């Protein structure tokens, strides 16, 4: 008798109809967007703060670089002693005083620049000042040494190495960024999915134990059927939730950004910054074309197929372990000791993915971890956009499937014994014994 569809249906409907699930589904994207909006708003607020910075330039060579901007006013003091200047800025509530002492050589000037302020100044302000002074002083030094600055400017060359693989596929920096983004998103999505819905499966197993219905159910269906039904039903609920999040999130994002007029582009992640730098060397038009070409360059079919297989494989592997944990314990507080061994490889996978795959997608570390079943789903998903030979993908997938079957067997054993065990918290030793029952 195959009750799997029936169990899946019940698990799915119970999850989806659950009040907290509904609330989470509709509230989380709003909270996320609200959070992002608040952060964006606050950082804008901070940037918009108007400052007056007093400049006391005894050399009288550098004050020209300080041009007033929207938020910063430079108050150039002239013919004032440092002592008086300090008094002055204390009274007029300036942000601080930049003091450039007059010394003989440019090198010495550079070493004797000071900034006085009441509170320790913001890093951006200081580095802004430093950049301005550096440029000017470098120019002055070059001039002093008799070098033609124009000539140096003219000789400056921009390089953008065109990348091409042996079989003639062209790629560029944008390509790599896109690949990183694709892999990163896929890997991170899997990671989140496992943690959120793995926990949900675990809780639902524990719930069956605490409500004591388990023995009734188990006298009608095989434990493994119940377990698989739970895993699949919960995953479907998860997919539903994710889909709603994506749609709602997108909608909210558009609405909020248009209402509050927050320029989302201002909130730059490091990747975006890299992207921008890459963009600066080309025109916007060419840029857009390049992105499209890059997307076309990605092994799309491979990506989608691999994503499905590794995502499902990885998710099933971990969720069967979560189900086993749920079966082994009586309540959620007892799960801690078993959670760590599950989370460790998962976190390791994300770290390996973030640090080594970006560095070298085909290096030894990335390659090895993309074969180890517990880390392979995340790491392989991050590697695939960079082009992984088919045999590697298939081998890794076979290993994953093999381990998954082993894990299901193991989990089913634990599950079968565990769901009927009440009262005491089992140790690892006992779990091992259960395998032999």
């Amino acid at each position: 008798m195959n009750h799997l569809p029936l169990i899946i249906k019940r698990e799915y409907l119970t999850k989806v109809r659950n009040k907290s699930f509904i609330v989470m589904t509709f509230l989380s994207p709003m909270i996320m967007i609200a959070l992002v909006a608040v952060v964006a708003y606050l950082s804008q607020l901070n940037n918009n703060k108007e400052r007056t910075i007093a400049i006391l330039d005894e050399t009288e060579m550098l004050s020209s670089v300080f041009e007033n901007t929207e938020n910063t006013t430079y108050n150039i003091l002239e013919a004032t002693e440092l002592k008086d200047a300090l008094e002055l800025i204390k009274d007029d509530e300036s942000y601080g005083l930049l003091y450039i002492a007059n010394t003989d050589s440019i090198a010495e000037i550079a070493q004797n620049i000071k900034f006085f302020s009441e509170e320790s100044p913001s890093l951006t302000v200081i580095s802004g000042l430093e950049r301005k002074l550096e440029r000017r002083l470098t120019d002055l030094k070059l001039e002093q040494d008799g070098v033609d600055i124009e000539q140096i400017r003219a000789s400056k060359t921009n390089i953008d190495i065109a990348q091409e693989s042996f079989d003639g596929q062209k790629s560029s920096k944008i390509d790599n960024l896109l690949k990183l983004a694709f892999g990163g998103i896929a890997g991170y999505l899997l990671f989140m999915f496992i943690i959120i819905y793995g926990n949900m499966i675990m809780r639902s197993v524990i719930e069956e134990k605490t409500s004591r219905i388990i023995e009734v159910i188990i006298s009608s269906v095989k434990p493994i059927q119940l377990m698989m039904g739970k895993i699949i039903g919960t995953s479907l609920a998860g997919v539903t939730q994710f889909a709603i999040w994506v749609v709602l999130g997108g909608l909210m994002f558009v609405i909020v950004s248009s209402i509050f007029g927050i320029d989302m582009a201002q909130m730059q992640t490091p990747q975006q910054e890299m992207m921008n730098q890459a963009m600066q060397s080309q025109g916007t038009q060419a840029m857009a074309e390049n992105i499209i070409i890059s997307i076309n360059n990605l092994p799309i079919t491979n990506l989608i197929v691999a994503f499905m297989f590794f995502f499902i494989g990885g998710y099933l592997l971990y969720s069967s372990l979560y189900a086993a944990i749920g079966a082994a314990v009586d309540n959620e507080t007892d799960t801690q000791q078993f959670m760590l061994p599950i989370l460790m490889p998962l976190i390791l996978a994300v770290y390996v993915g973030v640090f080594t795959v970006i560095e070298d997608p085909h290096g030894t570390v990335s390659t090895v971890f993309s074969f180890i079943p517990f880390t392979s789903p995340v790491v392989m998903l991050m590697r695939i956009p960079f082009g992984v030979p088919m045999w590697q993908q298939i081998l890794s997938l076979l290993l994953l499937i093999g381990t998954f079957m082993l894990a299901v067997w193991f989990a089913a054993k634990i599950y079968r014994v565990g769901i009927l065990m009440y009262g005491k918290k089992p140790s690892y030793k006992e779990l091992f014994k259960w395998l032999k029952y």
Partner: protein
Amino acid sequence: MSDLLVANSVSKRFGDFTALNKVSISVPNGSIFGLLGPNGAGKTTLIRIINQITMPDEGKVLLDGHALKPEHIRDIGYLPEERGLYKSMKVGEQALYLAQLKGLSKSEAKSRLKYWFDKLEIGDWWNKKIQELSKGQAQKIQFVVTVLHRPKLLIFDEPFSGFDPINANLIKDEILQLRDEGATVIFSTHRMESVEELCDHIALIHKSKKVLDGKLNDIKRQYKTNTFEIGLQSNNKDEVIKAIREKFEVLPATFKNLYDDIKLNVKIEENVSPNDLLSFLTSKAEVHHFVEVLPSANDIFIQTVKNN
């Protein structure tokens, strides 16, 4: 009468612990079979093996002459001692789900549920969640779900716990009716008065072994002590008692009787007929009470467990 269920020297070990040691039972068709034993004796393990929740290490279980197969799940209804339902699921939905797991079609399950809900007058619970019901109410639902697919074999583990006397009686009557309609019932309990009332066969499991089984009446006969309660009326009380003491073994007695001049428990030898005792008594005094003392299921239980 053939046997519906036969367990053949079934053993089960959990690690170093032996839960069942070569236990054999035969449950006759149409009987109510009491599966008795102290806590931790192995009853639940045996029941779980019959339900194919756990597999025996050794031995075989036959249902209707065939080794247990997954399909037999349809033929068994099991009400475990540790029972419960999904708390946040609605009564009707849940009952339908559990019935479908037992192989009923949705429409069939629905019409049967309607019959039972009407019979037990619980129709208006259909859309309530289990957590809104009392414990006894939830137990009723559970009972209905257990018997809904009309299994040949019903296994009840402490079915009356949690019920008030009225509902316990109601359920008892339902069980008897199901038996009359042809179902065979395995009944596990610690309440000996309900064993006395319901069971015609019993098996007693103690420390993983079966120590006693058979028809309840046969067992009682085995355990009888040939003792009779007698109540007599006579004018020379002391003389009569003296005369009885000379011929028979006499024990103090406590029973209720209208005439209680003389109340005694009299034990006779194996080869002596009760008639001899009775005619002896009638010759001495007026007999108002003459009853053979039968061992109660409770006595048998305690005696057997203590002796093992």
